């Protein structure tokens, strides 16, 4: 049977991708960021997931304001890295796992989570930056990827509680898939940041660190955070953190914290990163 072995949580700042793609990783500013992922790369090379479910948000790339799905599961064979206005990132095409994705879609829809199914989707930095941080710059990504896009652009996003419970339903779906697959789930976005308006540049390390603590030891506390609190305390775009709760919901209540990293800033954003493993992996 398939099983979820771990959760990876990370910011997905576009400037991180640009720094990597333009060969700036050795600069002190960026070394501070990339240095924080060296252990993570070693860890994931050992864990070798067969599939990663990546919970991310599209930033007006695949979805305009014509159609805004709250949860959209990528069921395609592959997903092409998008041109977000600066040209496409030079990263490998993202290979999907259509069979497992279709199984998850069916299972969670019957569990009353009405996902949108996407059979064609270009993927932006929200998805590819976390892959770059965890896997570096390979010729091909070392595992299959199932993208789960969450709307956090048009207010309101789904609640933290809804995200958490969707995570639980995804776990149930994965665990009822007959093939022996090791699955990791990524929660991406955040942490505190605001890139719009006169208040742009807002960072709240205290909030972020409390969120990381809650995720590791007391997820219920993070689940209860209201949208207005994210926006007021962690910046208008800090609300992306609800996506971490999907990944957290797919893990055990009690987990082992494998690794944690936090630094300010990458461009406009606080970079947070956490790896949690289920105790019986």
């Amino acid at each position, binding site marked *: 049977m398939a099983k979820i072995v771990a959760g990876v949580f990370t910011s997905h700042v576009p400037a991180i991708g640009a720094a990597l793609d333009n060969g700036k990783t050795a600069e002190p500013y960026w070394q501070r960021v990339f240095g924080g992922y060296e252990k993570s790369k070693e860890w994931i090379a050992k864990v070798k997931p067969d599939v990663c479910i990546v919970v991310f948000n599209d930033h*007006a790339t695949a979805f*305009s304001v014509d159609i805004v799905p709250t949860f959209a599961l990528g069921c395609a064979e592959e997903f092409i890295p998008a041109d977000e*206005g600066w040209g496409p990132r030079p990263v490998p095409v993202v290979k999907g796992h259509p069979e497992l994705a279709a199984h998850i879609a069916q299972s969670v829809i019957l569990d009353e989570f009405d996902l949108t199914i996407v059979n064609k989707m270009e993927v932006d930095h929200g998805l590819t930056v976390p892959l770059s941080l965890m896997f570096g710059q390979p010729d091909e990504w070392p595992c299959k990827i199932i993208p789960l896009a969450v709307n956090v*652009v*048009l207010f309101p996003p789904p609640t933290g509680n809804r995200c958490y419970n969707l995570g639980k339903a995804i776990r149930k779906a994965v665990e009822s898939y007959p093939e022996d697959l090791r699955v990791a789930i990524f929660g991406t976005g955040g942490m505190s940041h605001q890139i719009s308006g006169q208040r742009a*540049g807002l960072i709240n390390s205290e909030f972020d660190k409390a969120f990381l603590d809650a995720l590791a030891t007391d997820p219920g506390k993070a689940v209860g955070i209201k949208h207005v609190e994210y926006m007021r305390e962690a910046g208008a775009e800090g609300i992306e953190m609800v996506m971490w709760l999907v990944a957290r919901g797919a893990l055990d209540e009690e987990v082992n914290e494998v690794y944690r990293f936090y630094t*300010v*800033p990458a461009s406009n954003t606080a970079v947070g990163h956490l790896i949690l493993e289920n105790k019986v992996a």
Partner: protein
Amino acid sequence: MEKPKKEYDDIPGTTIFDADQSRKGYGINMFCMSLLKAENRAAFKANEVEYLKPYKLTPEQTESVLKRQWIRMLELGGNIYFTSKLGATDGLSFQQVAAMMTGATQQEYADMMLAGGRSVEGNRRKSEWEHKNG
């Protein structure tokens, strides 16, 4: 009937992109979306006024785009992930557009971020900004 106040209305210096804003800003956002294609970026740069016409922007929205009034675009229904594509067309990064919105120079903004960013203290509610501005 007057619409009820929104609980996020009192966050200072912030326009939340909700359904009301999205309805107002459909044209701005779809125009910005078109800039994902390199040929459209070139066509826009060649004749901005002409390029905007099919998007049926209001005169205020058109002016905000042509004058690159980044905050006004958001107030008139634009969303930052869309308007940043206009920034990209101008060769600007997210951080450069953000700095412009705050009124700081690029250097001041970058320095603020390196020093840990804008503190949430004094920046939670509009009343705190009114107090600050006398």
